[in-house]
């Protein structure tokens, strides 16, 4: 019995580089991520269309719903004269992230259907690299989609300073990563595009509506307050809103919008940690699914 379990009498090729190990995994993550971004860049039409839906929500809800809610919102002393459009703007940013993260994960199902996934799965790298690379690729695209919406801030009347933009980026990324990892976990077992779309539509809307993106979770019925706090997206939406509106509103007005747990306003760092933990669990499921071999 020779070393490394190779079969005695057949000399393993020594000149060949060992592909496994951490270096191989990192290389795999990088190239899977890079390819996703290359495709994203090639397909700019998709990126633009992906922004249409959030913009629609912003215009329709901001202008339409905003005018009928106007009194309720700007009249509220605690909200510090916040308009509905200003309130819903970070929510729409979160929505852009949510939708494109899920859409990004669909590329796994797409790759499976068109055969390219096989090329990745037979490569001599740990398959965790596929799940991680896909999650990071989807997250990067989703974050870009969210960041692009920042240019609308002056139109909505939201003040932004460099500090809050820089602070916003990691939070956008964490939300994008958690949702992308969730998409990967689901897509890793899906073999049909239709199946994935059905599951995703079924999941995406409740996740979006219950996340506090369209209305604050501060004054809702108990059952919704509970569901909203079970929705991982809430823990991404809330810090995004508090950071985006941070320069526009006084501090206590921002805090009054904050997501509470047991009557305590959650620190944004803790929210990020909750979201990261969720993302890590989802990624773990994705990795486990990819590693399985029949």
């Amino acid at each position, binding site marked *: 019995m020779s070393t490394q379990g190779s079969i005695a009498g057949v000399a*393993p090729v020594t000149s060949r580089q*060992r592909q*496994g190990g951490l270096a191989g995994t990192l290389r795999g993550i990088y190239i899977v991520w890079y390819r996703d971004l290359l495709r994203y860049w090639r397909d700019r039409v998709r990126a633009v269309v992906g922004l249409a839906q959030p913009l629609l929500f912003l215009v329709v809800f901001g202008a339409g719903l905003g005018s009928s809610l106007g009194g309720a919102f700007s009249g509220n002393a605690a909200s510090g004269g916040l308009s509905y459009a200003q309130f819903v703007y970070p929510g729409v940013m979160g929505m852009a992230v949510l939708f494109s993260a899920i859409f990004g994960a669909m590329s796994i199902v797409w790759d499976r259907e068109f055969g*390219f996934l096989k090329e990745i799965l037979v490569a*001599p790298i740990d398959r965790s690299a596929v799940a991680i690379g896909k999650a990071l690729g989807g997250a990067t695209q989703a974050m870009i989609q969210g960041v692009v919406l920042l240019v609308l801030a002056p139109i909505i009347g939201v003040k932004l300073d460099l500090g809050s933009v820089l602070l916003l980026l990691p939070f956008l990324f964490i939300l994008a990563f958690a949702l992308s990892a969730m998409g990967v976990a689901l897509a890793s077992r899906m073999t049909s595009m239709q199946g994935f779309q059905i599951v995703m539509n079924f999941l995406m809307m409740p996740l979006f509506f219950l996340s506090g993106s369209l209305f604050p979770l501060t004054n809702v019925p108990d059952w919704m307050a509970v569901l909203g706090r079970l929705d991982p997206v809430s823990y991404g939406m809330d810090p995004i809103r508090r950071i985006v509106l941070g320069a526009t509103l006084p501090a206590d007005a921002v805090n009054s919008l904050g997501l509470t747990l047991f009557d305590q306003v959650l620190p944004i760092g803790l929210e990020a940690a909750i979201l990261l933990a969720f993302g890590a669990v989802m990624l773990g499921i994705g990795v486990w699914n990819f590693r399985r071999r029949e």
Partner: protein
Amino acid sequence: MTAAIHEADAVIIATGLTKTFGAIEAVKGIDLDVRRGEIFGFLGPNGAGKSTTINILCTLLRPTAGHASVAGWDVAGHPDDVRSAIGLVFQDPSLDAQLTARENLQFHAFIYGVPAAERRRRIAEVLEMVELTDRADSIVMTFSGGMKRRLEIARGMLHTPEVLFLDEPTIGLDPQTRRHIWAYLRKLREEHGVTLFMTTHYMDEAEECDRIAIIDGGQIVALGTPSELKAMVGGDVVTLATADNATAADEIRRNFGLDPVADNGSLRVEVADGAEFIPRLVREASVPVTSVSAHRPSLDDVFLKLTGHAIRDEAAGANDMMKMWARAHRGRR
């Protein structure tokens, strides 16, 4: 594992390879060894277990029982070592159609750990080999089926594998493109000494292989060179016409111990080796031979004899038709 040692130059060794999916036994105890540098064909109808076997050897499936090693590595225990030693050309296209040919190759070079210094040179070499250098920066979606297949072969060779697995490499391609692909494959073997392991259900393609395993119902029913396999049917059939067939027939019976039959003005005789028989016959016959021809039994005859059914019956089942349609449809896009 020690039982798996057959020959020092065997690059693929399988012993008692078995794969069951639930109650279905797809592969029933396959034994084979493939020598370094040979073109080894796996011939059988769809559903015979060809793809399952190739998937086990490529570490995409785990064997239920038995062992297999490729390039010295156990497929179950060291999948990553096997994977870096093999190249794969799948039955269905596996290129990223939205990227260029070069980008597809770059992805492959990177994920297979081809050193950065060699990447550019290797990519240029394999593109040259399949004559796609001038299309390197075109989006793959614009390629014809044959060009895609060539690019996949180039990609499979990019990381200088010891064994190149090809699952139905010419399926759905027109005859001219198929000949082209075969020319590349022979060149690969000659110039790089790579071992080629391919599955096929085309008989003419199987003829090109050094050795063939005929698989049916999850078992290997015969293994050998094409001529060895065809010899199992009983040699060549020689058809001849002479100035005096009756005399010639007598002489053949007397001198060769064979039994010619008169058939429509000519004589037919089954011989072990037609190429050796014909010159002797012409030399020794006392009557002038006016025409003579020999035809070898085809692999179709062999398959029929061994399995009791023709390979082509199943070659175009409903499932296959669907696949062909999907392939053609995809190719048109």
